């Protein structure tokens, strides 16, 4: 089997990061839209959670990208149609881009509004921009619309992952499976 030479799945660290971050990002999206639509007492802890988790995810995505660059990714199946291959590559880089940009936009938006950026544990982050109403407006809109784009892209990503797992059954899902894997895939 030629496949024993190339990795058939992401490393354990990459899979762990993928799934913890997936849970974190889904939580961020739900907390985000939930908090800005409530005036209940939970508003205060929800906002604190959103900021803290968002900054933590930013730290994690840097580690994740470093792993991606050093360890690479298993190849996509050879019989994958070119359109799907292109879609996979583009959507994965878009997801990485959003994982980096969203927390920075949140932090920058708070800075541009002269809000102190306070996380759980009394961690205080410095402002990364001066106060500016035009910048705040721009960043606020970007954080909001890119969050919706992020959610839409994740839905597409999940649909594609399940398509690989349930319809094509081509080992792509197993490559990122949350469960420990054998070194090589059985016949695929």
């Amino acid at each position, binding site marked *: 089997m030629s496949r024993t030479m190339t990795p058939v799945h992401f490393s354990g660290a990459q899979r762990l990061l993928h799934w913890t971050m997936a849970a974190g990002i889904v939580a961020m*999206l*739900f907390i985000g*839209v*939930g*908090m*800005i*639509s*409530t*005036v*209940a*007492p*939970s*508003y*205060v802890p929800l*906002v604190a959670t959103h900021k803290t988790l968002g900054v933590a995810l930013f730290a994690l995505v840097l580690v994740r990208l470093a792993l991606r660059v050093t360890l690479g990714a298993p190849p996509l199946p050879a019989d994958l149609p070119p359109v799907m291959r292109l879609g996979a590559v583009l959507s994965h880089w878009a997801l990485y881009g959003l994982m980096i940009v969203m927390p920075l936009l949140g932090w920058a938006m708070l800075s541009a*509004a*002269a*809000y*102190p950026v306070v996380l759980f544990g*009394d961690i*205080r982050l410095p402002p990364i921009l001066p*106060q500016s*109403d*035009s910048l*705040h*407006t721009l960043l*606020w809109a970007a954080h909001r619309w890119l969050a919706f784009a992020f*959610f839409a892209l994740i*839905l597409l990503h*999940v*649909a594609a992952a*399940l*398509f690989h797992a*349930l*319809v*094509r*059954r*081509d080992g792509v899902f197993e490559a990122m499976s949350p469960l420990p894997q054998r070194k090589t895939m059985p*016949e*695929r």
Partner: protein
Amino acid sequence: MSRSSSRSPFVPLAVIAMVVAGSAAAFAYTAGWLSPERLTPSRLVAALAPPGGPALGHRRNHAKGICFTGEFQSNGNGMALSKAKVFTPGAWPVLGRFNLATPSPKAADATVRVRGMGLQITTPDGDVWRSAMIDPPIFAVSTPQAFYDLLGSAPKGPEAMKAFIGRHPEFMAFAGWAGSAPWTSSYAEDPFNSLNSFLFTDAAGTTRAVRWSLRPAATQMPITPEELARKGPNYLEQEIAQRVAGAPQRWTMVVTVAEPGDNTADPTKAWPQGRRTVEVGTLVVNKVIAEPDGPCRDINFDPTILPRGISVSDDPFPAARSSAYARSYDLRTSEAKDYPRTPVSGSAKP
């Protein structure tokens, strides 16, 4: 390849469609898009708008105001209640805003019963304490939902207000204050009260519920609203600018400590007389600056922006206010072009 062409893809495709549709529905539900009856900050802020619509570029409430700077001179007494740096002896820079509780920046002074103060104290440890206080001794309603009800009822006339008071009898205490408390012709003569309860935590870790007030050093010179009206629609801003130019104006900050059993969750309920009070320092206002290009313009005096040693209590208002003020801030900063930074000529502002 074991992928069998005999398997129908229908079931897996239906599963995928259900996962996607279910996730999208859960997201829409969380965002409140499926529950139009939910009290969102957008609805609360929209309800504040006067009949002609909101004044673009301005705060959605307390829209008429003027900036000030100064310092908070802490005497150290507050250290017995909170470990916040602001209560250690010293003088900390202050930024604030005198304001009128109206959604209209052009309202005449004598038409607005409630006056407010936005205050920010910054300490060298990087902590920021913001608060927005008003002059009545108690608030009008017990809950944010009731405030929304009040905003919906007040414009509909006396019958609707009677029905509102039937639902919220606690409003009568505030109505009593509004009808009988003296008016003044100066912000410098007005007290400003937190009304909401917060928690102070001292260095030993003991937490106490408190409210605070700024008591004016200037003597109150009562005036009728008619007399105030005769002085002009923007008298208060002219007066405070002149007065502060002549001499700094002072307020004593007094912290009142709740006793077990005191109602900390309802700002319409004053605590009984005789509660422990601590004078923690003096607010000194020494400069007044017009709002259009002043330092308070783009500040949100969100009452949940607190230093270490102060936190929110079981009072539901600070959270609701934080949510609503953020919405107001998002809106008004995005409308900056409708509120030029330089005062338009002919403006009565000093």
